[in-house]
């Protein structure tokens, strides 16, 4: 019995270590954003919001934030349309080879290292004579988040009773009406949930974006450039703001998921299947 208790204790320690390593670094950045540094050391007497004030005067960052929002929304909308069609297609023809292969293709950009998705699109756009810019970033993000939206929608569709659609048809509904009144209402929550999740992924995406960005940088790309150049204290304030935004997204997601499935525990089971 004592041996088991020792085991429990070590498992608990590892778990604590894992959670600490996930949260402590980020907490540190957040705390430091309120203080100033002198010769690499934190000056704890200087609590202020000064870096935040400085941040708001930085126009390049404002532009980057707008670009990020624009890219995220556009990419999610594009991916949603395609994912909805693909999911309905796969759900209505479960034994179709074509739909099965399409699923592999949809998963490719998500499974392969992002560097490959990024550089293949870069080469493709260049050879097609399309200049780098926001549209190319939007395509890159749409392709990247496609798999996750598709998977969540398909899971929901597979859980739906097929007789619902058959009944609608028997009652004389047209295809469009069936889609509008039967399928779409059932997809509303999964669309919302996967949309928020995909937006969050797009908002943070950096590796693909670095290949596809022209002169219009997104927020993570701008941040990457700032960090590489060296330390400016504004970085911490900027990071704290982005983290705040991530937390808002997370809360929204948890809320949507809670309404979707009734419990947060299914969150993972549904996506990682």
């Amino acid at each position, binding site marked *: 019995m004592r041996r088991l208790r020792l085991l429990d204790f070590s498992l608990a320690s590892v778990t604590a270590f894992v959670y600490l390593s*996930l949260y402590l670094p980020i907490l540190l950045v957040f705390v430091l954003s309120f203080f100033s540094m002198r010769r690499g050391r934190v000056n704890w007497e200087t609590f202020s919001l000064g870096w935040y004030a400085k941040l708001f005067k930085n126009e390049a960052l404002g532009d980057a934030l707008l670009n990020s929002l624009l890219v995220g929304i556009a990419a999610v909308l594009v991916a949603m349309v395609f994912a909805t069609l693909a999911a309905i297609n796969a759900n209505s023809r479960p034994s179709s080879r074509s739909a099965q292969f399409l699923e592999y293709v949809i998963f490719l950009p998500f499974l392969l290292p992002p560097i490959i998705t990024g550089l293949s699109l870069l080469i493709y756009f260049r050879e097609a004579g399309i200049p780098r810019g926001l549209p190319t970033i939007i395509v890159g993000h749409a392709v990247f988040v496609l798999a996750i939206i598709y998977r969540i929608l398909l899971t929901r569709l597979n859980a739906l009773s097929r007789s619902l659609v058959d009944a609608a048809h028997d009652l004389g509904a047209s295809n469009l009406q069936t889609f509008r009144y039967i399928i779409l209402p059932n997809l509303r929550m999964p669309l919302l949930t996967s949309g928020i*999740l995909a937006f969050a992924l797009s908002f943070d995406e950096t*590796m693909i974006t670095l290949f596809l960005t022209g002169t219009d940088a997104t927020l*993570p790309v701008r941040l990457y450039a700032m960090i590489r150049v060296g330390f400016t204290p504004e970085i911490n304030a900027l990071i704290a703001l982005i983290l705040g935004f991530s937390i808002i997204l997370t809360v929204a997601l948890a809320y949507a998921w809670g309404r979707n499935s009734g419990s947060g*525990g299914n969150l*993972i089971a549904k996506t990682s299947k």
Partner: protein
Amino acid sequence: MTAYARMVRPGLADCLLWGAAALFILIPLASFLIFGFFSVVSNSIDYRPTLANFDELLSNSSYRTTFFRTMRMAFLVSATNLVLGYATAYFIWQRPPAWRNLMVIALAIPLLMSYIIKIYAMRGVLGTNGLLNSATMALGIIDEPVSALLFNLTAVRITLSVVLLPFMVLPIYVALERIPASVLHAASDLGASEIQIFARVVLPLSLPGGIVGAMFTFVLASGDFLAPELVGGIEGFTYGRLIFSQFGLAFNWPLGAALSIVLMIVALGVIYAARRFGNPRWQR
């Protein structure tokens, strides 16, 4: 044929979906595969097919060293995280349901946080004036700050380990949660000890989750260039950085594409192996 199946016109759906998939996924991938067989002559791309890039790859020892060093690093990250991740997932699984949900959500939240920021935050931990040095100095474990923690391959390994941990814990936890309680009761009713239950029932049934997690971790770690770029310094030069540099200063896209083809083959191999071994027959 049910009405639902008739709702989608297969011909039209295939045309539309495959058209879009070809335009934005397949043709880009194909063009990158083809690009690996081109070369660069006086700063412009020569479109005559050649194996020169692959020849260079095999004969240039610094490319080979970088490749194997990176694969070793990615493997070590996967192995470390498999141990840490399994222990954590197992511990979560043993908690009461209310706790479990909270702990799983707390694991998923960092996944929604900016990747760049997480890497940057690790700098604050590993740096000379970082948290780790300050803490160990305050505790009297060391007298002088250790600068060897940042800007080398070890820093990259630690950073990637931390950043990729959720990708390991979550699939293992899902696998554990899928084990039917009846199976555990049966084992215990038949007189198996706790250790036997773990070794003969829990571990074999949850290991597939670990394999999937290890796959994710390896694929992401082997191709990453942001963490090495930001915490690796000159010593922490990895294969991903080598590829990325071909698209920047070095400006040798065909060579970059050829290097990536090797990375893609490795990634596909790992994904295939994970699908093959990570999915026990009864789950398929």
